[in-house]
């Protein structure tokens, strides 16, 4: 500005454009504002993604850049029993965990929405499993499921409910159930608090009017609560599915995919193959096979958001 002023004062020709004028133009201001976000997305999302695709189509190892092998890694995977078992596990793990999260999360939110003493303290406490670092929480569960010293088994036996404890992490089916429970334990608070926020946004007058009309608790939940929390519920559901589908820490901390690969999920197998075995190409290919399922969810969710924004 000072330079412009001096130019004018000295009688020179006025500048043909100024920054402020340029920013007035939408065609320029738009890209300027969006630019940093685009650069970040390209650097942090698009580039690693493109690199991962490149790796998945190569036989790259940690020490060797390898060469292009086309779809060889994928052909190998779909002929490999451990991978197919892992794929099945991942779907069971996700479906089981998310179902528990939805049921417990909504129930917990409804309870927390009621008025009772120390409500705020209880609400804050409910978040603990989600706040505690995954590794720490998993270690506590590992101890509780420990084949030799399980405190859960101790309680079951000493309370007379069972004569001997359960093989939480030893039996293949029970081990998968155990990792599902821990994942649900960790994810439920997020679900509950999100739904609670939606519940608190529902105007009380709607319930008053329904009560006057003689609606019972179940009818009020079905016709008022559920429709109004549904958009938030669906968003939380989609996020939960995505997070669970790609979860690593809980399974790796509890079982490392064992016993006999019964708890392996795609993220742990990808780590085991890509980093532990040094087979980067195949590890990337395993990760990429998560994409189709997640892509369907993401596209559906984006379309839903777009529709709700338009309306």
């Amino acid at each position, binding site marked *: 500005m000072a330079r412009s002023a001096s130019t004018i004062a000295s009688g020179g020709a006025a500048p043909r454009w100024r920054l402020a004028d340029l920013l007035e133009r939408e065609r320029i201001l738009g890209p300027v504002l969006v630019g940093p976000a685009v650069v970040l997305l390209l650097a942090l999302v698009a580039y690693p993604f493109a690199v991962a695709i490149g790796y998945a189509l190569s036989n790259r190892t940690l020490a060797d850049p390898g060469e292009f092998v086309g779809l060889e890694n994928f052909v190998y995977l779909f002929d490999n029993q451990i991978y197919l078992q892992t794929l099945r596990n991942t779907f069971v793990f996700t479906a089981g965990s998310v179902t528990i999260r939805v049921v417990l999360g909504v129930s917990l939110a409804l309870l927390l929405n009621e008025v009772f003493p120390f409500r705020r303290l209880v609400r804050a406490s409910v978040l603990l499993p989600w706040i505690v670092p995954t590794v720490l929480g998993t270690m506590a569960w590992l101890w509780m499921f420990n084949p030799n010293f399980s405190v859960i088994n101790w309680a079951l036996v000493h309370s007379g409910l069972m004569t001997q404890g359960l093989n939480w*992490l030893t039996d293949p089916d029970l081990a998968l159930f155990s990792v599902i429970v821990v994942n649900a334990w960790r994810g439920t608070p997020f679900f509950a608090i999100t739904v609670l926020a939606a519940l608190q946004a529902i105007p009380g007058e709607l319930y008053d009017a329904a009560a006057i009309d003689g609606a019972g608790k179940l009818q009020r939940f079905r016709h008022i609560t559920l429709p109004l929390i549904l958009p938030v519920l669906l968003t939380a559901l989609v996020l939960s599915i995505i997070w669970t589908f790609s979860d690593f820490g809980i399974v790796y901390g509890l079982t490392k995919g064992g016993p006999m690969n019964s708890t392996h999920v795609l993220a742990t197998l990808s780590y085991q193959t890509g980093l532990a075995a040094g087979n980067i190409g195949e590890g990337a290919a395993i990760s990429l096979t998560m994409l189709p399922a997640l892509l369907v969810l993401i596209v559906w969710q984006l379309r839903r958001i777009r529709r709700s924004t338009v309306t």
Partner: protein
Amino acid sequence: MIRGLKKPAGRRALSRRRMLAVATAVGGAAPLAFPAIAQNSLRGTKLTILASNWYVPENNAQLDQLAAEVTKDTGMEVRVERLAGGELGTKVASVIATGRGGDLAVGVEFDTYLYASKLNDVTNLAGEIGGMYGGWYEVAKAACVVGNRWKSLCIGQAPAAWNYRVDQFAAAGYDKFPDSFDELLKAAKALHAKGTPIGMTLGHASGDGRSTNYPVLWAFGGKEFSEDGKTVTLDSPQTLKAVEWYAEIYKYFIPGTTAWLDPDNNQAFLAGKVSATVNVNTIYLASRAATDPARKAIADNMNHGLWPRGPAGRFANYNINVWLPFASSPNKEGQEHFLRAWYSRKFLPNWTKTGQSYFIPTFAGFEKEDVWPADPKLQIFRELNKINRLPGYSGPPTPAVAEAVSKYILVDMFAKACTGQMKPAQAVKWAAKEYEQIARKRRS
């Protein structure tokens, strides 16, 4: 790159071999330590060593002290960067990929094969050092030599043995650890009947999962690959025998071993839940050093036993550590100088003795050295040093073997048969197919 090291101006050229010969002739005192010839040329350079912590804390302090001494004597700044066990492998992979972050690292058994093209050739140094200590054991060559060139130097191995409760074995009628697989099976039955079962890891435990499976496979004559490391040979009558034996003895195990991770066998033994398990000597060392009388009593009541001898011999397996000299390092001379200091008579025997046989350098000549602990309960680790083998035996520890190990295929083969998920023959076929797929992929 430090140049002119071998023939600095004003000095008589002194080859390493000549220096070694001279030093050995004068009584073997510190022949490789801190050669003055290197001091000037190394001044001002840096050497970053990547390491995790060994179990015996004094061994870690000795490494730090050696680094400080080399720094003082040469003017080369030697820095030891410590990482947690799991992180060290990732860091090594990162240095290999980027060429930055370290000059020398402590690696594990598969690293030399995985990264051979990114490691300096230390064949001459290996020859000199091997000559000093009566030659390297085969296991060291298997871990460090790729294509007839030494691409790493073996630090040592932590062999696993049977840890057993002398009192409980005596109560079951055994005054020493069984020396055949039949006897071990009978002992397991007797101990189970007495309410003091044994247990071996059958879970996805990166260390113990191997040490409890390979010795059985090898002792019955089973092998994953042929000697050239290329042909899968797992599906054999010998492997089937090993799996059948395992499935039988599993009936007398403490429940839960298919979920055991690395700490679980230690915990079970220390808590008195099992009368025997397979582990390195850390259970004993920890108990012996404990102040808690109950914990100390474990040390008094336990001993170590060798794996039984099978139809194909007696074997053991556990960790092996190697020095990885990164080719990306600008300080190759510094690497060599440090390695000479490490393997010097001034340092290595003392380091070994301090380690209480937890980590044992793989030199045949160490048999006669004063490096072994006096404690009679640690004597067998001397024997284990000779019979320890690497995954892939009798072939090399190739990347295909590394992949099979990291996928726990052998562990799961035994576990599937033990738990009845598959019949032994099916489990062997399943594992052999997994090995075939890995081998085919690695060949292509």
